[in-house]
């Protein structure tokens, strides 16, 4: 008994020593690139960083969110190497940059396109931006009001931390007369992830939802609606017959889409340039597709 006990104790001690020994491996000097900005792009940016670091073990990319504005502010303060932004830099920000001796350089890195989906049995085929706004803020509550069947509208949305949620809210719902952002109606059912949302709309003939174009283009159990910029405009489908309508998204005729940007200070140094090259390479753009965003025109 005693022998066994001492054996166990020695074994534990030895393994402890080994463990500590392992931990104290010398760390190689790493080149650190810090990225900050748009919450929409955090997951995408992280994906790029992960894959880039896998290929270049000496590189360390640190990605944080906080919103496009915070990212740009950090770039202008010179504390960040790359600012992620889901909008172009404003005139004011360029002026501010000049006074701080910083010359922002713009990279278009991907596009964001959101499809509005309904159940395939729904007779509605296209909606205007205003109608979509009124549906999701709870002003229009019955499909009849839009020329469809006499059924109540059931809203499906994403959790408030998702980038899709942010973009849709910002881009489609916008701000009200008081200058406050409009919120989704509180009858909106919150689902975890695009897949769950697609599933819900596919099973609910009263449902309407939204999500990345890339994801829904290939699904046959939901119907992607055409979107009209206004009453008179032509309805544009973001995807047709299982394929994303890239042209419409690239040239901006599809209303719920936008470019995503990375900003660097001046011509970036090598470590930043390498990372940017990776993002714009075929591999980087494949990751864009994988994360349900729209890749750049090649």
């Amino acid at each position, binding site marked *: 008994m005693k022998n066994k006990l001492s054996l166990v104790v020695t074994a534990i001690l030895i393994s402890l020593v080994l463990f500590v020994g392992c931990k104290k491996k010398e760390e190689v000097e790493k080149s650190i690139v810090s990225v900050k900005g748009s919450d929409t792009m955090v997951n995408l940016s992280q994906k790029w960083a992960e894959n880039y670091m896998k290929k270049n073990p000496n590189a360390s990319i640190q990605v944080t969110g*906080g919103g496009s504005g915070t990212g740009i502010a950090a770039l202008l303060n010179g504390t960040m190497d790359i600012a992620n932004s889901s909008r172009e830099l404003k005139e004011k920000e360029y002026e501010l940059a000049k006074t701080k001796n910083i010359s922002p350089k713009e990279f278009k890195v991907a596009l964001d396109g959101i499809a509005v989906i309904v159940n395939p049995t729904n007779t509605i085929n296209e909606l205007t931006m205003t109608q979509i706004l009124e549906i999701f803020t709870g002003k229009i509550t019955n499909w009849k009001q839009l020329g469809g069947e006499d059924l*109540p509208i*059931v*809203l499906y949305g994403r*959790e*408030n*931390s998702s980038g899709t949620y942010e973009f849709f809210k910002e881009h489609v719902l916008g701000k009200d*007369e*008081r200058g*406050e*952002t409009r*919120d989704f109606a*509180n*009858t*909106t*059912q*919150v*689902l*975890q992830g695009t897949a769950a949302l697609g599933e*819900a709309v596919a*099973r*609910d003939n009263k*449902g309407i939802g939204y999500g990345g174009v890339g994801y829904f283009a290939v699904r046959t159990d939901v119907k992607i609606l055409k979107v009209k910029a206004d009453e008179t405009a032509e309805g544009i489908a973001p995807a047709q017959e299982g394929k994303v309508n890239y042209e419409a998204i690239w040239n901006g005729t599809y209303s719920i889409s936008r470019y995503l940007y990375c900003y660097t200070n001046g011509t970036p140094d090598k470590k930043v340039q390498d990372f940017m090259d990776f993002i714009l390479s075929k591999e980087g753009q494949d990751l864009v597709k994988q994360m349900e965003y729209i890749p750049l025109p090649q």
Partner: protein
Amino acid sequence: MVDTTKSVDKIKNEDSELSKSESSLYGKKISINVRIKEKIIEYFFAANGIVALVFIILIFVFLFREGIQALNNVGILDFIYFDQIQIDKSVQRLYEWYPTSSEERYSLLPLIVGTLLTAIPATLISTFFGVAAGVYLSEISNPKAREFLKPMIELFASIPTVVLGFLMLVVGASVFDDLFHPSNRLNAFIAALGLSFVIIPIIASMTEDALRSIPNDLRMASYGLGATKWQTISRVIIPAGFSGVSASIILGFGRAIGETMIVLMAAGNASNITTDLFLSVRTMTATIAAEMGEVSQGSDHYYALFFIGIILFTITFFLNLIAEIIINKMRKKNIF
């Protein structure tokens, strides 16, 4: 319960007798060794018990410390309503949970309503089936059937709740939708059904325990007076075991309030304030689960989620406390 404590005492006595006889046989040295060993084992178990207690206290302290900071920026009234000033300067009172809006709204009302709207129906359903199952196991089934059924029911309680939630989401909701066409496919009732799968085993198993601890004399006396089986169960056994059964229901209710995965998946997560069982609702637990992952640490939203945690903890703590008190009373009463 009574039997086990007695048998433990017995074993203890036997043990000490054994060590006494050992000491007389092998001499003093061994007896000291045995005693030290026993002491060590005793301390080991005591230490484990204390560690568990310390952890619970630490969890409570942490929860409270984080949650109470919500009151720094968000008033206690903000957790009830938000006065939105309209463009014409009129005021509209809103009861909405909307912490990410540009006008942050923290009303807990929709979440509390959602929690009750799933937990109460779930408890009612489970009380009906759980108590019936418990009565059957304790009073009606033959010993062989009981030996098979009781472990099966308890096994049922060990199904991961995420599996139940998924089943309700995919199968349960679709079947229900086809049959009854509720206004929302995922609704409070679907979630309550899912919850009952977790709570029925709790109530059934505890009801059985409570009824079995009723002394057989009562049954015999009842039969002796010419009562039928049903009369004995409904007028003698259930009244006698009432406190035990009610404790099981309270514990089941506590579990229903604290359950997360099923309601997150099946209740639809729309913060409606409603009494309509067939509308989507959002519970307190689901809100924490859905939003805690991405909220930025130290924000008002973050602390508000902890504040919900405090409320949940307090509710379940008191429910468990009440149940525990009832069970203790019952134990004392049954020792004649």
